[in-house]
């Protein structure tokens, strides 16, 4: 198993009374509350943490979010290029430029090719469907977001792999009549591609495309369901059974010298769920096209309904269910692994067993008021005492212990 670190560079330094008075901490909160001096320090600390991971053998992930205290990483390629040039050892995953919000996938391909060259072939490319307040922040229609997602991925893949001069793309959502990117990627074949999704339909597409599927904060039930949908789609398409290197899970992770210290740090990570997810109703699940019309009664009358057994909750419903819980509750739900090196290792392996295996643990290792020093300590303990044991976990057939 590999481990990957991410710091979304959250911005917790807005007065609580300001946050309480705002209807949303995303998209609409005025940026006068973002002190650029503090932001500069947060970026500098984040880069230090990533470089520490490079020394510890923990791969790194660069994310993207827009216009909110939940993340200052509005421009994925900016941090990606820094990591590509300053790290020397580990793999780098962009997860990712939000392609359904960007008008020109060819530009994204150019950025990725450049990052791959800068890193001398250490780039992995992840795609996230985005949504909610980010449609407003980026002037992107919520309608046909999924169609744009796959068309952009197709165009980016072609631009990154085509080496014989100009090709033309006149698709449904994107048009680029003269594509011929320089530089081409450093890696001789298309860099490994990832997709972050929990919904079974998209999971099927991810499986058929043989991408790495990453589930973010979904807990064992949602993860099992989505992984199974991936495997079923592959089987239906006549593809061989996937191995666990095609699956990843992202959780909040904090490691202390003792279990109690790790949980205390984990409690600080909870800011991400309890404070930074709060969003105004116009950026919620009633956004046009996000849910089928038959779901309207639940959406218009009440809060998002919980998923029934065997279903995976929508991203919005999942976000709503994550707010206002404690670290202990988060650990019980399998969205946080916190404690001492031993207890964290056990939590990870229990989860691994529960969902039928995965080869990639993506760690949200800093958030909210967790300090740089705490993060560095947590990741150092993880890298030295947990990671070697995870490295012993071999790649096997995915879902090896599942009924399908």
């Amino acid at each position: 198993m590999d481990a990957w670190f991410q710091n979304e560079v959250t911005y917790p330094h807005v007065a609580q009374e300001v946050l309480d008075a705002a209807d949303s901490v995303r998209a609409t909160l005025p940026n006068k509350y973002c002190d650029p001096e503090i932001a500069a320090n947060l970026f500098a600390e984040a880069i230090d943490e990533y470089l520490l991971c490079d020394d510890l053998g923990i791969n790194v992930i660069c994310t993207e979010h827009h216009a909110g205290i939940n993340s200052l990483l509005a421009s994925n390629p900016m941090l990606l290029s820094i990591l590509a040039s300053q790290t020397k050892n580990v793999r780098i995953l962009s997860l990712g430029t939000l392609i359904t919000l960007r008008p020109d996938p060819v530009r994204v391909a150019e950025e990725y090719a450049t990052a791959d060259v800068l890193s001398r072939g250490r780039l992995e490319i992840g795609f996230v469907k985005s949504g909610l307040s980010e449609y407003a922040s980026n002037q992107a229609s919520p309608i046909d977001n999924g169609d744009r997602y796959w068309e952009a991925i197709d165009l980016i893949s072609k631009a990154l792999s085509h080496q014989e001069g100009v090709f033309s793309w006149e698709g449904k959502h994107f048009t680029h009549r003269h594509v011929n990117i320089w530089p081409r990627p450093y890696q001789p074949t298309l860099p490994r591609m990832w997709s972050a999704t929990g919904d079974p339909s998209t999971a099927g597409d991810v499986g058929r495309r043989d991408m790495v599927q990453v589930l973010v904060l979904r807990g064992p039930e949602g993860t099992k369901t989505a992984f199974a949908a991936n495997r079923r789609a592959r089987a239906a398409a006549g593809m061989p059974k996937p191995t666990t290197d095609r699956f990843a899970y992202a959780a909040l992770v904090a490691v202390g010298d003792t279990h109690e210290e790790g949980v205390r740090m984990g409690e600080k990570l909870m800011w991400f769920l309890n404070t930074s997810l709060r969003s105004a109703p116009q950026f919620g699940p009633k956004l046009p096209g996000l849910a089928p019309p038959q779901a309207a009664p639940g959406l218009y009358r009440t809060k998002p309904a919980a998923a029934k057994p065997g279903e995976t909750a929508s991203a919005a419903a999942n976000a709503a269910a994550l707010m206002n819980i404690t670290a202990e509750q988060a650990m019980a739900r399998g969205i946080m692994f916190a404690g001492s090196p031993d207890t964290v290792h056990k939590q990870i392996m229990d989860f691994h067993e529960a969902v039928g295996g995965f080869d990639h643990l993506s760690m949200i290792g800093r958030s909210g008021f967790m300090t740089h020093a705490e993060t560095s300590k947590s990741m150092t303990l993880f890298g030295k005492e947990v990671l070697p044991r995870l490295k012993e976990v071999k790649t096997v057939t995915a879902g090896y212990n599942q009924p399908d």
Partner: protein
Amino acid sequence: MTNATALPASGNLLIGDIELEVVRRGVGQPMLLLHGFQNIEPDAPFLDMLGDHASIIAPSHPGFGRSSRPKDVETVYDLVHCYLALLDSIPDEKVSLMGFSFGGWLAAEIAVKAGRRIDRLILVDALGIKISGPETPDIFDVFNKHPDEVRKRSWHDPAAQAPDYDALSDSQLANISRNWEALCRYGWHPYMYNPQLKRWLGHIKARTLVLWGASDGIVTPAYGEAYARLIPGARFETIDAAAHHPYLEQPRAFVDRVSRFLKS
């Protein structure tokens, strides 16, 4: 697209492969009525009143209400051509055209293209054009702003007039959701206007009434006045105690204004 050859007296209407649900009411010269954010409910009181003055044909746009939307029908261009084909199926030489809100945008586009076929044009709190500079949104953003604010700006007396979602049936809520999705598909970008329409409004041949809810906060009366100034000879009138839906908020006053205009 295959045009319908003749408008049937009842039932749904086929425009090529698009099946439109149609509300019909009244007698007299045909009036094509194009709805706004929501399709026209058959029990809306203004329909019977207006039916005394015109033969109303009120289709739900493709993707709204129970009208179908073939996958490749996805722009205002498609809707305009759908309704031009529908106009072809109406045997009468002259037709009145009325559009509410988003349907007002469609009506303005159709009036430009259909020329003298349109006898009278009535634009009610219509969208469709850009008047102000880049930093002044003319049309309130119903998708990106808080729903409470949208409600306040849409209705003169929201407590009395705005729909209460808790009181609506499952099928009514599903219908609202379907309409919302279709509206977003057609109107997201540029947001509810065609940057080219303004320059062609001067070619409208129909006698035109631009009618506005005096309290409309989605598109203000000032926007309506500017709209009217771009259409040769257009009259601009407001209806008191009404916002973005004067036909629902003040149906009697609304129908009085429209019928007076039709007779003038």
